[in-house]
C-alpha cells in the first residue's frame, strides 16, 4: 500500500473549490431553512387548526423520509409533474432548504415554548398584539436557546449536503468521486474529502460556541 501525497497536493485546489460550493449551498439552504422554520415553528403553536395541521404534516413528512428520497422527488419526480427540467443547483438548494426548514421549525418551536409563559402575558397585558409580542418579546428570547441546536442543524446539513452528489451536483463529495474516477486514488481523495468536511464542521461548532457565549453575557448576569 502506498500513499500518493503528490495526488493529494495536486487535487487539493479542486477539492477546496468543492468545499466552497458545499459551504455555499449549506449557507443558502440554512438561511432559507431558518425563514421557513421560523414561520412553520410559529405555525405549529398558533391557535388556528388548519395552520397547525399543515405545519405538522410538513414537519412530519420531511423528518419521516430520507433526504436522499426528497432529493430524488425534487430532481426526478417534480419535473414529470411540472413538465420542466430542474437545474441540479436549484434542486439541491430546494431539497436542502425544505429539509432544513422542518428541523429548524422544531428548534424554534421548542425555543419559543421554553420562554416563560409570563412573558406573553406581560406583553399582551400591555396591549401589544400577539404578533408584536412574538416579535419584540418572545422570539428575541427564544433565539438565545436556539443558537446551539441551530449550530448542530447547520453541521448536520453541511454533512448531509453530500447527498446531492447523486444528482450530479458538483460539491465536495462529487468532486472527490470525479477525481477518483480519473486517478483511482480512493484512499488519498476520500481522506482529503473527510479532512475538509472535518475542518468545516469544527470551525462551525467553534463559531457557535462563541456566539453562545456572547449572547450569554448580555443579560444573564446575576
Amino acid at each position, binding site marked *: 500500500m502506498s500513499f500518493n501525497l503528490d495526488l493529494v497536493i495536486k487535487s487539493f485546489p479542486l477539492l477546496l473549490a468543492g468545499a466552497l460550493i458545499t459551504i455555499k449551498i449549506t449557507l443558502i439552504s440554512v438561511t432559507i431553512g431558518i425563514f421557513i422554520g421560523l414561520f412553520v415553528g410559529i405555525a405549529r403553536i398558533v391557535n388556528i387548526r388548519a395552520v397547525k395541521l399543515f405545519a405538522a404534516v410538513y414537519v412530519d413528512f420531511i423528518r419521516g423520509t430520507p433526504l436522499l428520497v426528497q432529493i430524488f422527488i425534487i430532481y426526478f419526480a417534480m419535473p414529470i409533474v411540472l413538465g420542466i427540467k430542474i437545474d441540479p443547483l436549484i434542486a439541491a438548494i430546494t431539497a436542502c432548504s425544505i429539509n432544513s426548514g422542518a428541523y429548524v421549525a422544531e428548534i424554534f418551536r421548542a425555543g419559543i415554548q421554553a420562554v416563560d409563559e*409570563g412573558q406573553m*402575558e406581560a406583553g399582551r397585558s*400591555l*396591549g*401589544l398584539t400577539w404578533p408584536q409580542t412574538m416579535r419584540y418579546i418572545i422570539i428575541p428570547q427564544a433565539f438565545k436557546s436556539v443558537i446551539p441546536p441551530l449550530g448542530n442543524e447547520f453541521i448536520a446539513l453541511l454533512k448531509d449536503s453530500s447527498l446531492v452528489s447523486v444528482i450530479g451536483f458538483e460539491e465536495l463529495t462529487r468532486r472527490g468521486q470525479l477525481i477518483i474516477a480519473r486517478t483511482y486514488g480512493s484512499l488519498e481523495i476520500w481522506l482529503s474529502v473527510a479532512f475538509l468536511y472535518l475542518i468545516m464542521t469544527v470551525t462551525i461548532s467553534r463559531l457557535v460556541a462563541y456566539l453562545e457565549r456572547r449572547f450569554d453575557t448580555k443579560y444573564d*448576569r446575576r
Partner: protein
Amino acid sequence: MIDVKNLRKSFGSAEVLKGIDLSIEKSQVVVIIGPSGSGKSTLLRCMNYLEVPTQGQILINGTDLQKADINKVRSEIGMVFQRFNLFPHMTVLQNILLAPMKVRNIDRKTAEQDALVLLERVGLENKADAYPTQLSGGQQQRVAIARALAMRPKVMLFDEPTSALDPEMVGEVLDVMRNLAKEGMTMVIVTHEMGFAREVGTRLLFVDDGKIIEQGEPRVVFETPKEERTRLFLSKVL
C-alpha cells in the same frame, strides 16, 4: 368603571369561578383576599381577558369585553404580576418604552421623557440602563409598576405583587402602591398583606371557592367578619 356580572370560569370540568358579581367605581382600591386556589388570580385575569370567562360579562366603562377591541382595552388596564415578568433581554428603560412606542405610536423622545419621570416616581431613576437580572426583586417589581403606568392606565390590577419578594423589600413596593392610591388610581389588588389591605383598601373582598363570601370596608370586615368562613380565614392569617 368595572362591572363584573355573573362571571363563571371553568378549566375543563373544574369550575373555578362560580358566579361573581362586582362593581368597582373610579378611584376605589379593591383588595381581594382569600385562600390559595380560591380563584383570586383567575378573577383578576378575567378583568383584562387574559382568561376568557366561560359565562357572564365584564364591562369596562360600559363596554363589554366580549365585543371590545381587546388590545385597546388592555392598553388601558395595567397589570402587575407576582413574578414581575419583566422582559429580561431589554434594559429597564426599554421595558418601559416598548408598549407606549409600539401600541400608542408615541415617538421615542416623548416616551423616554415619560419613562424617566415614572422611574423617578418609583425611585429608580438611576437604573434606566440596567438589565432586570441586575436588580433586586423589589426594584424589579417597581420597574414592572412603572412599565404598566407608562400606558397611563385607567385601572391597575395587582396579583400578589409582594408575594415573591424577600421581606425587607415588601415595603418599598407597597409604598409605591400606596402613593398610587393616594393619587386616585383605581386599583384591584390581590394580596396577603393584611395591614396594607386595611390601610389602603377602600373595599375588601373575601373570596373562597370561586365565590365572594363577604365584602365591605376593610376595617369592618377585619374586626367584625359576618361569615364563619371569613372568620376562620382571618384567624389563620392575622
